[in-house]
């Protein structure tokens, strides 16, 4: 059973398109995140949701919009894709209590052409 699963694993799309990445966790965690990993492997937080409430919203373009229909799901929708959006996007989840580690999905490699 995969703890944090994201789909798709690979996404190749043209500039200007709109795309979504889905994430689901079956760990019962109350917090979910989206991280972006650039070509130099640097990982940066984009968004964080706690119990479906947005608690961290870093400086990302408005074209990026997270949606959390319930505690177990956090999807990322991207409008008007640009070349610079090409990266690997990781979903993660954690439990707020106890300050434990985060569990990561396998990543979605987005390539905008």
């Amino acid at each position: 059973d995969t703890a944090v699963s994201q789909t798709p694993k690979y996404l190749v799309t043209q500039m200007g398109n709109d795309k979504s990445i889905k994430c689901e966790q079956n760990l019962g965690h109350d917090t979910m995140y989206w991280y972006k990993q650039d070509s130099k492997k640097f990982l940066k937080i984009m968004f964080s949701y706690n119990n479906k409430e947005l608690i961290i919203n870093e400086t990302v373009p408005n074209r990026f919009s997270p949606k959390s229909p319930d505690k177990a799901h956090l999807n990322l929708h991207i409008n008007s894709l640009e070349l610079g959006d090409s990266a690997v996007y990781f979903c993660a989840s954690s439990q707020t209590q106890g300050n434990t580690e985060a569990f990561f999905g396998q990543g979605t490699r987005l390539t905008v052409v």
Partner: protein
Amino acid sequence: AQSVTQLDSHVSVSEGTPVLLRCNYSSSYSPSLFWYVQHPNKGLQLLLKYTSAATLVKGINGFEAEFKKSETSFHLTKPSAHMSDAAEYFCVVRSYTGRRALTFGSGTRLQVQP
């Protein structure tokens, strides 16, 4: 504010020799610290974590790290490198208060020579 600095972007060792990956942290409060590993084209896997219990933390695959508050360091070590250890390693900090998201270091690529 919290941050981590990984002092080496790239470390190369020979198989069977010790590994040392260095990490310094900055945090307003007692932090939780983690090391994650990322193999090529793979996701992130937790190696070990420090959460204010024992200062010497043992992780998977023979890795361990020591939390030194006086030096604000959390270096990762392994006595004997294996070819399969070649990967990207991330030192990560999480504060007990305020922003609770993980803050990543810039990563250290470990290369293991035969």
